[in-house]
């Protein structure tokens, strides 16, 4: 694979979702400064960043792979691990911290046996933390599968986690 090619490089697989990524790359005229924007699109589309994706982005934007890797690992928003079927993001901002975010994390830990940044073995649930969701009026706040819920308690949290763990797995591949 040439490092810098004048022609557009073919995507790593014939997965149709690459077309979405190509769209963002084209919209920015394959300019190197679009790196973060393109990584956002990859993560939105695939759920996380794979090594293949990083290499493809590097060649497409004519940016060294080392830089792409550096950027992808510098920012907390980007994840290089596949998320579980459900995600639960606990806000650990100051207001949520004061109002007991730690006990919410403990609740998940007790119920599902995972620490922040981990996914259950059956890939059902991932536990993540966020620096601040800006939903301080609702502290402590948690994002369940993209929906913000506020004023949570440890018990309420355990109930939600139990529901997630008991649901039937959808027939989807990991990371989809």
């Amino acid at each position, binding site marked *: 694979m040439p490092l810098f090619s004048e022609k557009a490089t073919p995507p790593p697989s014939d997965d149709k979702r690459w077309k979405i990524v190509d769209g963002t790359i084209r919209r920015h005229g394959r300019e*190197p*400064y*679009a*790196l*973060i*924007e393109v*990584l*956002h699109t990859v993560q939105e589309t695939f759920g996380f960043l794979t090594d293949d994706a990083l290499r493809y982005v590097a060649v497409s934007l004519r*940016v060294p792979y080392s*830089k792409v890797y*550096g*950027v992808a690992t*510098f*920012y*907390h*928003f*980007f994840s290089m691990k596949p998320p579980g079927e459900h995600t639960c993001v606990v806000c*650990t*901002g*100051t*207001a949520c*911290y*004061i*109002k007991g975010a*730690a006990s919410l994390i*403990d609740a998940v830990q007790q119920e599902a046996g995972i620490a922040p940044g981990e996914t259950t073995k059956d890939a059902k649930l991932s536990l993540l933390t*966020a*620096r*601040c*969701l*800006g*939903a*301080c*009026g*609702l*502290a402590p*706040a948690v994002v369940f599968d993209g*929906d*913000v*819920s*506020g004023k949570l308690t440890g018990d309420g949290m355990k109930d939600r986690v139990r529901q997630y763990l008991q649901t039937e797995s959808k027939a989807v591949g990991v990371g989809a």
Partner: protein
Amino acid sequence: MNHEELGNVAVKAREAEGQYKHTIKVCMAAGCLSSHADQVKAEIEREVKHRGLDQCCKVKGVGCMGLCAAGPLVADKNNEKMFQGVTASDAAAIVDAVVDNKPVHEAIVLDSNLDFFKRQQKIVLENSGEIDPEKIEDYIARNGYEALFHALMNLKPLEVIEHVTKSGIRGRGGAGFPTGLKWTAVAKATGAHKYVICNADEGDPGAFMDRSVLESDPHRVLEGMAIAAYAVGADRGYIYCRAEYPLAVKRLRTAIKQAEQHGLLGQNIGETHFDFKVEVRLGAGAFVCGEETALIASVEGGRGTPRPRPPFPAQAGLWGEPTLINNVETFANIAPIIRKGGDWYASIGTEKSKGTKVFALAGRVKNTGLIEVPMGISLRDIVFKLGGGIPDGRKFKAVQTGGPSGGCVPQQFLDMSVDYESLASVGAIIGSGGMIVMDETSCMVDVAQFFMDFCASESCGKCVPCRVGTKQMLGILKRIVNGEGSEEELAMLTELAQMVKSSSLCGLGQTTPNPISTTLRYFMDEYQAHIHDKQCPSGVCMQKKAAEVGA
């Protein structure tokens, strides 16, 4: 669009609004949406239609009304009747109350005469909770883009800057640098292109002013940026917004598109020779990107690490060209300043801190939400009048202002005036506007550890004092919290704090020790109790330790 056409749009929008005898406003900002305000709005709309009232009662999605903790919030046209904690099943009762003036059950009534509402003075937030943030006509109806036209048609760029200088406004992002000076520096600098960047990377935990402004009144920020671009001679702008704020990003993109369609952004704005194109750039969760040189590195697509200044971004910023960077709230203040004049703005506030400031009031306080107050108000008024005091009969302990760069202000300074100088004199800062109230159940050593944990993980790693210093300070704090600290370590903590403060490269490192310094200064007894008595006076730390041992 020229000025006359703008006036026509405003008249038409006001007429359309005036057709309705009643208006029911439903808050559609992120806080209320997360408690299902969208369902409430849909149900009220259905109810209004069902009763055949859709010709006389308008149901309108609006931006943040401020009292986020009581959401979803609903109000009538003049905010005389307000409702809190509304669910879809309350729709009929609300329509009854607004249209037929019938009483509703106590639980959802919100007293619109609360100090929380009455004591505010709104400039930045004057449209929040009033206009539909997704409709440019609503903004234009309330004098939107008038200031831009006034600047383009009647003022020279230097006169615009003069107004901003005269207003005395200082940067609302945290550092409080005089905005007029910054603009002057960029206007004087020479380059092939100049850029205007809006810093919407609101990273301070416990702060949500910028999110709320962007979600509630995005055009206000765009207008401020356009005026700034005209004043300093820029032709391109970027809004660097946190990816954690999807709704703000969506509304911003909608607003940019609408402004372009109306010829208020893009080429030949207002049929003059002024061009200004704005794009949104997404952050990716790095606190340090709030620092202006780190932000520039991130807009350029790289790792967000700061670089030494000078050269300042005003001389060599984005792609080496002169760049003006201001915070969301600063830009949101510009249109009123140009419309009403710098002198008007300077008449509000204290001698050295002009205007109003938006604060995000949260933590152990009854009324959590967003407030806008004149500079110089006392901290006591904010916490006990607007905030309604501490719930559950507990005792006030401290207010944490300015996030990880700020400090904890204890009880004895409650009557202090809230302005840049006063807060700095007690070791805290106004910062971007986060205010977290703490009561006796919060341990100040634990709070210091919380912020240090934050800073240690957010340190970009470029300079040694910050990268290593934060780790070392965190280690000592952890030992103290666990009852393993010693007097020597406390002395080392003080020394490290001084070292990191004086030798770090950027603002993040230089202000990182502030939470430690202020807690050491005002709550030394709590540190001592942890070290000598192996006890946490607030019962926070040892409990945690016991839980860990038990687990």
